């Protein structure tokens, strides 16, 4: 019994070293692990907001309709009703933010139209397709069809 009490100092010292190690581990862990880690799961919760905060480049068709309702009305009556504006005009969030700083470029119909409408065996048979060389003999698509309402009898418009 006497020996145990005399040697208890060793045990206390081991226990102190262990506690000190635990404290050091918890403090280092507390500083190194980001605060939001584990907020929703085993990942950094702040990452969600960081990814959500990235800037957009395509404004969306609703933004276009705010300023150009006349064009959208013509489009929505024609065969291209389901087509988004930026599908042809490109990303224009900058134009929506400041219409003078970013000006959309008028797309070249000779390149643009054939991307969708050039005949291809892999396209669904129902989709309107032409062999552009035979169809127009080099004429620009825009000389007969109006892009916003492409049917021949659609009576002009833009």
């Amino acid at each position, binding site marked *: 019994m006497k020996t145990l009490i005399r040697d208890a100092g060793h045990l206390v010292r081991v226990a102190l070293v262990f506690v000190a190690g635990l404290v050091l581990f918890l403090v280092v862990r507390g500083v190194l692990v980001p605060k939001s880690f584990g907020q929703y799961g085993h990942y950094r919760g702040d990452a969600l907001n960081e990814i959500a905060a990235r800037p957009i480049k*395509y404004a969306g068709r609703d933004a276009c309709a705010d300023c150009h309702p006349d064009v959208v009305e013509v489009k929505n009556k024609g065969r291209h009703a389901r087509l988004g504006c*930026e599908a042809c005009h490109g990303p224009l969030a900058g134009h929506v933010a400041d219409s003078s700083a970013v000006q959309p470029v008028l797309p070249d119909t000779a390149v643009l139209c054939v991307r969708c409408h050039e005949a291809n065996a892999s396209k669904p048979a129902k989709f309107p397709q032409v062999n552009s060389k035979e169809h127009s003999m080099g004429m620009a698509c825009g000389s007969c069809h109006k892009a916003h309402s492409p049917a021949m009898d659609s009576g002009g418009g833009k």
Partner: protein
Amino acid sequence: MSMTRRDLLGQSVRYLLLTGAAATAWDYLKAGDAEAAPNYKTTDHWWSMLLDVTVCIGCGNCVRACALENDVPDGYFRTWVERYHVGDWQLEHPLVDSPNGAKDGFPDNRPPGGKNFFVPKLCNHCTDSPCVQVCPVGATFDAPDGVVLVDSKYCLGCRYCVQACPYGCRFIHPQKQTAEKCTLCYHRITKGLTTACCETCPTGARQLADLKNPKDPIHEFLRTHSVQILKPHMATGAKVFYNGLDGSVR
């Protein structure tokens, strides 16, 4: 990180009394906001996408829009379009190509005969994602709204997830050297917009869908059409649904 002696002592005591995770939870309890994104509640959504193979024309609008919207480097793809050709009975060996991911469309033509069709592909935002399961550091994760995302600040670039994805949807960004993939345009859908690919798809072959929104037309579509997911035998719980998918598609 600047810290006064008082802060350090206070934090040390807190971490002593509580474990790290409990301390973090306590912080958020105190602040009173579990949802930091304004006007967007992650738990109100469960995002998915509907791809209609029967109307895809392979124009490549989605691939170009994705690259512009997300600054995807040339030669890498977060979404791409494949062209399938199945001659006759050889469902196991279809001819598949995707020149430059269909960024320039498909200018050439397949020889006539057999089945020809386009299949757009992207991250399937699996419910039980293999990529999330293998990530050693918690850099890729299932967001509470069903989108699989990558925390590029936490990613080590170890490439485990690239190998784990059964759909080949991930790549290592050549400059950042971290894993990248489709985010389902998380920066757009949290603002009430649709994804860049859906915005520019001319035929409606791609439609963003919210499975938690009872008014979303996808519910009616799923009830009335023969819809498939890719590699159902992998039990990934993929949330990208394909209408009119041929059995040869892998």
